Each structure stands twice: as structure tokens, then as C-alpha cells.
């Protein structure tokens, strides 16, 4: 009898458990801007929030570069991914059944950013006819990397092909390459470039606004209800206006802690169009 009661009690408690306890976990791949430990630390509270919202377990899938994330989306190994504009446009170009769900704001509440071309102030270089210069780029999958620098150079009658370029790995690294004199030109995110202004870095060209990082959903692996639920719960947060929300998102990764707004693939058309025109060595070639 006791066994039976225990079993009934156990079954009762099982019924009380949230359904996500038994459902397959939702696989989320963040943008790999730090090492794995840091990424997991930054996005763990974010996934916890999603779990509570969608009533389904969410696991972090760490992929060390954007190419792997794009491939993971194509192979249905990833359900949700945080991507920059260029990787998102590349994934769309592959024809994957994905969509842009929300776009995240920065600390200033902006949903866009720009890329710039920077030079050391003492060198007096301008964008017109830049040729035979050493150019420091961030990395191949960075929107402010090859793609946008080439676009900005093209606008001024030049091209990266007329110069030498090297990837430094980060936006700060690109800036420091110029400051330390190892390169004469760099491409980087405008906001980061401005932080090196006090070290003599001048930004000589700036792109049109680019939509910020986007949360991409895999429509082949997620139901419309789940997608709608994720969207609803992310849009519900307004950390820049609501103190309670700010407290909640305080420890989230910087890319996602300031709230989100609705978006769609149309917002990234600028990047998609550029990709039709510009080939990125090692990425689209």
C-alpha cells in the first residue's frame, strides 16, 4: 500500500513539473565574441529567462566561429542563434529557413550602428584614392570587416585589392594596429574607434546605419507557437526604462542586456545587397 501511495505521490509530482522538464532542449548559439567560459557565463541567465518564458529547457551551444553557427542552422543543430548582420545575411543567402526575430539595443538604446575606417591622426590620410596601404581588418565574418571597408573604399574609388590587408581579430586590435604603426588604416565599429580617439585615431569614413545583432530562429525546428513565445518574452523587457527589468538583465551578455525591438529580414537588405556585389575572400569565394 505504501508503495502504491508513494507511486501515486510521485506521479502527482511528475504531473506538477513544468512540461519543459521532459521536452527536448532548445539549442541557442550565442555570437562567439569571447571564450567559451565567458560566453556561457554571460548567456546562462539569458537562457534561464527564456526557459521560464517558453516553458522549455534552453541549452547553450557554443560554436567558436560564425561559420559553424551558420552551418549548425543549416543542419538543424541550432534552433536559435545570435548573429551579426553579415552572418545573418550569409545564412539567408544559403537559403536556410530562418527568420530574424528581434534586434537588440545597445546601452544607448540604439538598434543600429555604423562601421568606420580609421587612420592615425598624424598621418593625414584620406579616403580618396587609398592605395598601397596596410589595412587592419577585424575578422572575415565581421560586418565592419572586409565587407564594409570594401564598400566604403569603393564609394571613394578605391578597393581593398589595391591595398594589403590583415585580420587582427577584434575591433580594438584593429585600432591598436594603427596606433602602434603596424597598419595605416583600420576598419572597425565606429563606437570602438571613437574610444581610441584620445590615442590619435581618426575616423575618416563612416557607413550607413546597420541593424544591430539579431536573434535568428530556425523555422524548421521551432514551432510557430514557440517562436511567438520567445519573441513575446524578449519584447516584454525594457531594461533601459524599467528598473526591475534592468536588474534582471544586469548580468546578461552586453549584446542582449539592453532590450530588444521587432525586426525582419528586410532590415538587413542593405547587407544582403552588398553581398551580391562584394565577395569576401574565404567566406563567399
Amino acid at each position: 500500500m505504501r508503495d502504491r501511495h508513494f507511486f501515486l505521490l510521485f506521479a502527482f509530482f511528475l504531473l506538477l513539473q513544468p512540461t519543459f522538464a521532459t521536452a527536448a532542449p532548445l539549442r541557442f548559439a550565442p555570437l562567439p565574441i569571447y571564450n567559451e567560459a565567458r560566453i556561457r557565463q554571460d548567456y546562462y541567465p539569458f537562457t534561464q529567462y527564456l526557459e521560464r518564458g517558453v516553458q522549455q529547457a534552453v541549452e547553450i551551444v557554443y560554436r567558436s566561429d560564425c561559420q559553424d553557427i551558420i552551418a549548425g542552422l543549416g543542419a538543424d543543430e541550432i534552433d536559435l542563434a545570435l548573429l551579426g548582420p553579415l552572418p545573418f545575411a550569409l545564412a539567408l543567402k544559403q537559403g536556410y529557413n530562418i527568420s530574424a526575430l528581434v534586434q537588440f539595443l545597445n546601452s544607448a538604446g540604439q538598434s543600429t550602428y555604423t562601421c568606420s575606417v580609421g587612420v592615425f591622426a598624424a598621418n593625414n590620410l584620406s579616403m580618396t584614392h587609398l592605395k598601397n596601404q596596410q589595412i587592419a581588418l577585424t575578422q572575415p565574418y565581421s560586418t565592419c570587416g572586409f565587407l564594409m571597408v570594401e564598400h566604403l573604399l569603393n564609394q571613394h574609388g578605391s578597393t581593398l585589392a589595391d591595398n594589403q590587408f590583415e585580420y587582427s581579430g577584434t575591433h580594438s586590435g584593429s585600432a591598436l594596429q594603427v596606433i602602434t604603426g603596424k597598419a595605416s588604416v583600420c576598419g572597425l565599429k565606429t563606437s570602438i574607434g571613437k574610444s581610441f580617439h584620445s590615442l590619435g585615431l581618426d575616423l575618416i569614413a563612416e557607413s550607413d546605419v546597420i541593424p544591430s545583432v539579431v536573434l535568428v530562429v530556425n523555422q524548421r525546428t521551432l514551432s510557430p507557437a514557440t517562436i511567438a513565445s520567445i519573441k513575446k518574452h524578449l519584447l516584454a523587457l525594457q531594461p533601459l526604462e524599467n528598473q526591475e527589468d534592468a536588474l534582471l538583465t544586469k548580468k546578461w551578455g552586453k549584446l542582449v542586456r539592453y532590450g530588444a525591438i521587432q525586426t525582419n529580414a528586410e532590415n538587413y537588405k542593405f547587407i544582403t545587397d552588398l553581398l551580391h556585389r562584394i565577395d569576401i575572400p574565404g567566406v563567399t569565394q
Partner: protein
Amino acid sequence: MKIWGNLLLIYILALVAGGYLFYTTLDHFQQQSLTLRTARVQTTYASILQSNRLLADTFFNEALNREEILALVAKVVHSDGDQRRIQRGLLYRSIYAAYQRNKINVGQIVHFHFPNNFSMLRMPWPQKSGDDLSTLRKSIVLANATLSPVHGFAIGKGKHAYRHVYPLIYHGEHIASVEVSQPYYQIRNRIQQLEIDSTLQFVVFHDKGQLTQIIDQKIEKNYITGELHQNLIRYKYAPDRWGDTAKFQDKLLPLFPQLKANKQLQSNISLQQDFSQYLNLNGKIYFVIFKAITNISDQHVGYLVGIGLDAQITQLTKHMRGFFIGTSLVFLLILVYRGRLQTALQRKKENEQRLQSIFDNRLVGTVEIDVDGHFRRVNPRYESMLGYSRDELQTMTFYDVTYPEDREAKDLLKKLKNSEKNQTFQDTKRYIHKDGSFVWVNISVAGIYNHSGQFAGARGVVMDITELKQIESDLLKERQRLTAIVEGTNAGTWEWNVQTGEAVFNERWADLIGYTLAELSPVSIDTWMKLTHPDDLKVSAALLEKNFSRELDYYECEARMRHKNGDWIWVLDRGKISHWTKDGKPLKMFGTHQDISAQKKAEVALQKAHDELEQRVMERTSALKQTHDQLLHAEKLSVIGRFSASISHEFNNPLCGVTNVIKGIKARTQLGEEDQELVALALHECERMKNLLANLQQFNKPTTDRREIIRVAQIIDDILLLIKKELKNKQAQVVKTIPANLPEIWGIPDQIKQVLINLIGNAGDALGPEGGTITISAAPSGRKNITISIEDTGSGIDSTHLKQIFEPFFTTKAIKGTGLGLSVSYGIIKSHGGDIDVQSELGKGTTFTLTLPLPIEKRQADDSKDSRG
């Protein structure tokens, strides 16, 4: 006893002395070890700081304190706007290479500050310069204020480090200060690397600022109040950089509650000085070394802590404890054993005496022989058993007293010789008494072995069973006799131990139900219970209970048992309790089973035949009684009929006289109007009575069997007149619907009248006490028949009776009816070439419809009329 007491005292003294010596030595050793270790840590720490300072000085002098660098710094200081930022960039560019080369050894951070304590340029985060550090970084403030190098521990915004700050003097002007910092975790790691003892692990505790990013205000507060907090050693955010701590925390964390609970440790911590001590945690000996850390103002800011397991001392202490416990146990065992040894010796002596006594006084014979069978020792009982004295037996062997046939066959001594050690044998054999008679004995023997384990003889226990043998023989004969009897009766036998449920059955018992005993084995009382019909088991149990309570002397029960072929067979189960327990409970019971199936079958058949006969007699008697009652009723009606006819005739004469008298009175006398009416009424009533009597006579007149033309309307009127009174009593309202031109029919009038009286009478009977309506109607039916319907609003006829109402003697009126009316009516109508039909609905009423043919000439006339028409 005294010796043992002294030994114990000596042992205890030795134990205390040894323990004291051991722990004193251990303590001394520990103190020495601690001193040595502490000195080593202090020396290592000091040498690291010293070498670090040396390296920092070198780096400063060779890489930073150079003309071109100082010039750039001066340009930064003296320029502004775009020019200042360009100069900062160039300064960064100029020292970048040297910084990259030296940062690992010298310090992770190289930080330039303006003389006003504002940050000028920092490596490796140049973009984050510009902060006012005058309140945070005492080292900078001091260096800028004194224009002298400052070396020492100082907190920072994100890191706590040992810092070297050098004022930069260019062309006699203090243009800036540069700080080279070594974060404390790097110092700790270097101590870790330099310490020879790999078991010693280091961690840094600090009470201010953010030594690690996780030391929050709460933990800081805890430390300041003198408590250790386990989170102080956690560094989860960058385990790769804090690798050693990350590994160490797994070992240290479980010990934290005990560390916190150690009062001596807490007391030492509060002294804010270097100290070391041993800690016993979970039975393991750890040593901890706390190296106090002070800032540039010589204020205590925390400890560099080393902690490690001293495996040697842990092991030594463990072994020593084991030694003390072990030796104590051995000593105690000796003490215990001493007492027990004395007791055992005493017991052995007593046992020997007791054994001798038992040997001599045993009721059974006891004997010891050597390897050749010579008697060594016999007890008195053995002597009396054989009739020889002990002395006589000691000159003989046991073969001499053994019956010749048993000497070889039952040589137990030989068996013992050839068997494994410590085996025993038992057998029954015959001895020869001194007087020549047999003595049956049961003998059990065991070998006697010497100290080297060799066989040295045998010891035997001998029991005289001569009487038992005789009884056994008698019993065997009795058993054979009983077996013969049982076999003769062809009965199955059973024996039952009532208390244990054990049962013994013979082969015949099993054979009765188609089995062999082997098939039923193992048998018990459950075998009987499983094979016996459940209903009979209850009866059996009740009878057994009466037997057990001595209410019945014998048990006897007829029961059905399941035969192997699936049939039930009847057995007569008889038994008697033969043995009772001391407390009066039944113990043993014996009994028999006899197959009485054939007898039972015959009984059943006989009973069945008897029952059938009884049933038939009852049915016949009932039928005869019914017939008798009906005949009686019919006879009664017949008599009443004849009687009424006779009375009618007798009444007719006086009635004529009365009528004549009334008529004469009417003719001769002048009567008043009222009297005339009365006389007319009297005459009318006389006339009605005359008609009634005439009808009664006519009704009882025997049938003529002569057919004639019958006017149906007239017959119905006559009948209604006859039974008017009866219908009135039944509150029957008669409705008559007969057309004036109803054709006449051809038939026997009194029979048709009988039918109609019967039907109208039945209709009246069918009405309940509240009465009802009887509708009599007649009409032509085609050209050949007429129909007469008698419909009542009575109780109706049950549908199950409808089929039977025309059968003879069927009646629903009990004794009131003969059951012949409708049957006769049916016969009459059929003999007239007509038909009779009935429609009835229970509770609503019944309609009888007679169909009678028209006379032939009438039908012919109608036919010819048709043919003409």
C-alpha cells in the same frame, strides 16, 4: 594474581611514558617543521618581492626612463587637443614593444599618470585612461607628492597588486609618474612555483577592495570581522587564469566549516601577523601558513595563505594510535585469557570426573576397545547386558561376545579403521549372553585417536534392544495381519498426524481415485483436502470437530473425491483417533476409504424414480380431483335444471288459477281507476311469469336435434328475459343492435340458444363489481352468413388463456364454472357449419363473434337474385 597486576601497572606506565614521549617529539617536530616552512614561505615571498622590484627597476630604467620616452611624455603633458592625443598614441607606440616583452615578468600593468594623479596612459587598456586616482591609489599620490619611487602593495580599481611607482623627471621637471604593477595572483603563483613542497597550496585573502571580482561587500565584511568565508577562495569567472586556486578550492572548501570553527586559527588571524599552525581536520593533519600582507603604509590588508596536508605526520599519528590501541588490546587479551585458562583447567578436571561418573552410571552400556577389539573399559550396564564381569571381559575381545553371523557382516571396528577420522557408525547386531542366549543390541561407535591422530581404538554406546526386537516382531506380525485384512476389504487406508498435517496413504487409497501414490507424492492432509469436494469437506470438518471434542467416538463421512479422469467418486471415509497429546488434543488418527460410488449411484437412481412417481401421482390426483369437481358441478347443474323444469310445470297451474281469478275480479267488479291499474299490473306480471316458466321449460327440454328456421332476434329476446335479473344484479347495461330485416338462420334452436346463453352469461361474469355494458349485435355477413357479436366491457382474457378457452374443462372461474361451456359452444357452432371467434384485450373487454350460415334456399334465392340482377 599479583604478577599479573604488576605487569598491568608496568604496561600502563610504559604506555603513558611512550605516549608522552611520542607526542612531545611529534609536537617538537611539528614546531620545527612549521618554523621551517614559515621561514621558507617568508623567504620566498621576500625574495619574490625583491626580485620583482629589481626587475621593475630594470624595466623602468632601461625601457621607460629614456630620453625619447620622457620627451614624448613631456609632449603629452604640454600639448592639448589633437596634438595631445597624437602624442599619447605615439607614446603608446614607443613603449608597446618593450611592454610586450616584459609584462609577464615585470608586471601586467604599466600605467602613466599626470602629476595631478590623473591617468595618462595605461597598458594594456590605453583607451580607458583619464581617471582621477588621487583617492584610490595611495602609491601614485605618494610618489607624485614625494617625487621618490614607492614600492608596496596597493589596491586598485580592478586588481590588487604589488606596485612600483617611479616619478618621471624630464629636464628637471616632474612631468609624470609611471607605475609598474604585479597583480597578487601572479605573486602567489610564483610562490607556488618556487615552493619545493608541492603539497602546500596558496591562496590570498584580503580584506579590502576587490582582490577578486567575486569578493563582494558582504564577504569583505565577514573577513574584517575576523571570519573566513569560503567564497574568498572561489574564482569562477576565469578558472584558466586562477588554475591553481580552482584546483585547490575543491580540497579546501569541504574544510571551511572546520577552519571557521577553529578558535586558535581565528585568534591568530586577528593578530594580523605571520603565523603558522597545525590543524586536525577530519582526522588528517594539515599545516597552514599565514603570511601577512601590508600596504605601502604598513597597514595589514590581508594574508597570503598556504595550506597543505602533512601526509607524513598524518600517517605517523595514525600508526602510533594503531600501536597504542593494538598493544592495549593484546594486553587486555592476555588478562582475559589468563582468567579463562584457569577456568578451563578447572572445568576440564570437573568434566573428567563427571564423564567417569556418567560412564559408570549410564543406563546404556558403554565400552572402549583397542585396535584389535580387546576390551579396555566397560561400564556396569555393559557387564550386566552380557553377564560377564569387567575382569572377565578384559581378557576377551568384542568378537568373542558377538554372534558368529554378525562378526564379519557387522564389524564396526573394521569400518572405523577404514574410514576418515571422526566418523561414527551405528548398527544393530546380536551379542551372545554368557548364558548362551541372544542379546539384540543397538551400537553406536566412534574412533579413538592418539595425539598424533592415529586410530587407537573405538568407543561404543550399546543399548539392549532385545525386548524392542520382540515387540517389533510382534508388531510386524500384527501389521501383516492387518494388511491382509485391509487388502481383503479392498479399502484405502490413511494415517494422519493431526498436529503436523503429515499423512500416510496406502496404494489402494490413491488407486481409488485413479492415481498411484508416486503421482500424489509428497502427500499430506492437503492431498485429501485438494481432492475432496468442497461441500463434503465442510461436512467432514464438522464431523472431525465432533470427533476431536470426543462428542463422537468414530468419524464417518461420505464424501466425493475428484477422480483422475475428472469424475467425482463417492468414498466412505471412516476413522478413529488413536493417540492424543498430553494436553488432550488429537494426535494420530487412522482410517479407511471405501469406494461407494456404485451404491451412491443406485441410491440416486432410486430417489429419482421415487420422486418421478410421486410427481406423477400428485399430477394424476390433481387431475382426478378437478374432473371430479367438474362432474359434481355438472351434476348439480343438471339436477337444478331438472328441478327448475319440474317446478315450472308445478308453478304453471296455480298461476293459471291466479290469472283467472284476477280476470274474474276485473270482469265482475267495478273498480276505481287506481285499482284498475293495479289489477292490470297484476295480470301483466302473471303473464310475464307464465312466459318465464314456459321459457324455463323450453330451455330444459332435451335437444331434439331437429333443425328449423330460427329467428335470432327472438331467441336473444327470450334469453335476455330469462337472465334479466341476473344481469341486473351484475349492473350490466345491455345494448342490443339487431336490424329488423336480419335474415333467419337454419339450425337447432335449443343448441343455438345454449350457445348464446353461455356467451351472454360469460359476458355478465366478466364485468366487475362496478358493472359495465354488454353489446349484442347481429348483421348479415355477405350473402351466406350472419354474424352475432357479444361484446362486454369486462376484465378481458389474458392472452396466454386465449388459446385454451375452447378446450374442455378449461375455466378461469374456479369452482363456479365447469370449463365445458365454451367447448360445447364451439362444438355446436362448428356442427352448424359456422365459426366462433374471440377478440380480447386485458382490462378493456372481450368480443365473441359467431358466424352462422343462412338456410340453403335463402342463399340460393339470393344467388338467383344476383344472377338475374
